């Protein structure tokens, strides 16, 4: 069953066609990868789903309900949470306060203010940030900030978690840690994940299905194995493979 269903979605920025007739279904409980070169439209797609931007045409159904035109805070309450590729921590607040605010505002039935701190601490423990919860978020390293993005998104109790390059800029060890954390929270929170990732090994490792975008068009979809063998994908990434001609 698809939790998120996108039909014929297009987005124009003036003359630039950022997304062209995208149709995409994300199966409940799956990890769905989005890949494509810079400028392919991946982050634009995230922004439209999350309500940060409006689609030019097309519809988005979440759990069977249309969510086009909702404000970001309304989309969040429906159960969709995103992270930002360029991290946006509340730098002047502590790590725990960052997550507390997500808990108090992102949930359909928010807990009492007095309970939020303990709930935030649990989420931070899940994601491996609990030792730093009293630190100002601005003092975290990049790896810490990426984790905080995930923790804050989890605070809203999403059904669909959209991760925008949460592994970019991390060391290989940190990438391995992050994948382990994501697997753990996916199982414990019963999440569906839509993930953009340039670290290809991480993407193929985690995804059940991968969709490839190229210049705003969907050019392929399939299992990681199918994508690796797909001719259109190879062409988009490496150029046309021409057979070498033997010298005459």
């Amino acid at each position, binding site marked *: 069953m698809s939790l998120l269903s996108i039909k014929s979605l297009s987005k124009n920025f003036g003359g630039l066609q950022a997304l062209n007739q995208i149709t995409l279904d994300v199966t409940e409980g799956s990890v769905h990868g989005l890949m494509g070169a810079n400028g392919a439209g991946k982050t634009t797609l995230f922004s439209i789903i999350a309500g940060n931007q409006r689609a030019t045409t097309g519809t988005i159904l979440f759990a069977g309900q249309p969510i086009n035109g909702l404000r970001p805070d309304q989309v969040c309450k429906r159960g969709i949470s995103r992270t930002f590729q360029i991290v946006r921590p*509340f730098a002047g607040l502590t790590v725990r306060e960052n997550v507390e605010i997500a808990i108090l505002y992102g949930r359909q039935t928010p807990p009492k203010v007095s309970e939020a701190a303990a709930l935030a601490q649990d989420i931070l423990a899940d994601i491996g940030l609990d030792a730093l919860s009293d630190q100002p978020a601005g003092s975290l390293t990049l790896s810490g900030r990426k984790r905080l993005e995930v923790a804050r998104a989890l605070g809203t109790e999403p059904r669909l978690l959209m991760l925008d390059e949460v592994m970019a800029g991390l060391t290989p060890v940190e990438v391995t840690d992050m994948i382990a954390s994501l697997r753990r929270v996916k199982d414990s929170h019963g999440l569906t994940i839509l993930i953009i990732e340039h670290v290809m090994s991480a993407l193929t490792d985690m995804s059940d299905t991968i969709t490839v975008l190229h210049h705003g068009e969907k050019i392929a979809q399939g299992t990681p194995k199918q994508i690796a063998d797909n001719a259109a994908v190879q062409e988009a990434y490496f150029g046309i493979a021409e057979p070498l001609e033997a010298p005459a």
Partner: protein
Amino acid sequence: MTIPFISTNSSLPAVSATVIGAVLIVGLGVTMGSYWTVVALNLFMWIALTQSWSLFSGMTGYISLGHVVAYGIGAYLVAVTFKMIPLWLSIPLGGLAAGLFALIVAIPVLRVRGPYFVILTFGLAELVKYILLYTETTFGKSSRLLFGAPKTEVLLYWVAALAVIATLITYFVGRSRFGKGLAAVREDETAAETIGVPVTRLKVLAFAASAVIPGMIGGLMAMRSTYFDVLQVFNPTISFSIVTMAIIGGAGDARGPILGALFMLGLAELLWSTAPQLYFILLGLFLIGFVLFAPNGLIGLIKRRKQPKGSVS
């Protein structure tokens, strides 16, 4: 500037300290003679104004340089309805009118941030001032005499009560869900709305709420001066003084505006009558010094002394 979210300990000590402090100052002001009654009145007026400003600007980071507009609207309503409706009704109505005005202008005004917001609020206050000035002169009422206003002591009780209420509002909002949402707005609006914070609604509510008490104060202070003059109650110096006290005391913490008002009035009492030039020179120097070296004001300095470096709240 960080809002303290230490909400585990009971708020009873803070509330009782505020009330007892206010009662003591009122008592002293009244018993020590009319000069000190006026000093106490001024102190509470500035606390109420700066505290209300802090409720919006301190928490959201939108610096309003036009808060005098609320003060002026309240004063205007009370002056126009003077002797027509009783003060216990017209003063709250003045606050309500100021809040309503803020609510109406909030949506367009809050679309801009940073220096644009500062200039826009300043310009808006000037605009209202000149519209009212034009209206008043057209009807031949460039100033209105207000005979039979209540005694200074009575005004002091009102203003002190409002200062206490404003302080408690800032204090409780700071630890509420609402206050945490406003802190998220101050830090990053896009991130805030993405995690479910209804950014526009919170900003508009805080903006309107921060105008109500200044509106009531404006009405009371018009009674104090026994005449109403548009240029006086819409004087931009009032807005500047509010911001100065908030910077020196520190915004975003209910104790900051109290410290800021005490500091500035203390300085004025010491120097105003003997060396007015020195007062302004020192005020300028302090303002520059605080902006550069203690951007979180006196309350920031106190917190820094209490905590070892590196630890937070």
